[in-house]
């Protein structure tokens, strides 16, 4: 079974702090994704990566950056945390099979509160 592990289930940080959210997958998947989930808004894509050291902006990249130095690890960085970044953050991964129709596998999420 695919395992996507997010380093923290709950995190509380202060406004202006630099925040790191870590995600590791154990199935050698090429693709990795970061979403945020807010009530009534569903999932919105922040950043994604199709390979090591590659990154692409999603729908809401402002205020975030990412790092993918190793294939199994994809980090989300809040450069200077603000209260409107309080949310549930979900990491996902999927394999590349040539047609990109494979389901994404999700971690259990990090509930981040910015005070």
């Amino acid at each position, binding site marked *: 079974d695919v395992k996507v592990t997010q380093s923290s289930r709950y995190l509380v940080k202060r406004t202006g702090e630099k925040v790191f959210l870590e995600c590791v997958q154990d199935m050698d998947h090429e693709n990795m994704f970061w979403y945020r989930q807010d009530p009534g808004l*569903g999932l919105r894509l922040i950043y994604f990566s199709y390979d090591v050291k590659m990154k692409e902006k999603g729908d809401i990249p402002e205020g975030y950056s990412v790092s993918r130095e190793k294939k199994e690890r994809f980090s989300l960085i809040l450069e200077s945390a603000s209260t409107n970044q309080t949310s549930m953050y979900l990491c996902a991964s999927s394999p590349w099979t040539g047609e990109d129709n494979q389901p994404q596998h999700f971690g*259990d999420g990090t509930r981040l509160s910015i005070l």
Partner: protein
Amino acid sequence: AQSVAQPEDQVNVAEGNPLTVKCTYSVSGNPYLFWYVQYPNRGLQFLLKYITGDNLVKGSYGFEAEFNKSQTSFHLKKPSALVSDSALYFCAVREERGYSTLTFGKGTMLLVSP
């Protein structure tokens, strides 16, 4: 641009009754369609997908979904609901061609009463 609509925020059904969670989509070409379920304080779990072929797709936990190209719909169904099916359900779509990402609907909360 691709989009997904889940017109119901919440669906209520009694245990043992059939359930339907609605989803309509919009893409330029042919769609890849997915259903996911989310239990409280957990990530999303994959239920089923439509890529091509039969319009009726069977998935995990007894769920199935019917692809209707003319109505651009992909409704999730189950013949007999269980209380344990109560959860948040997401429909997602991407185009068959190109290098697009998944677009998710806003989710539908399914509540199954005993």
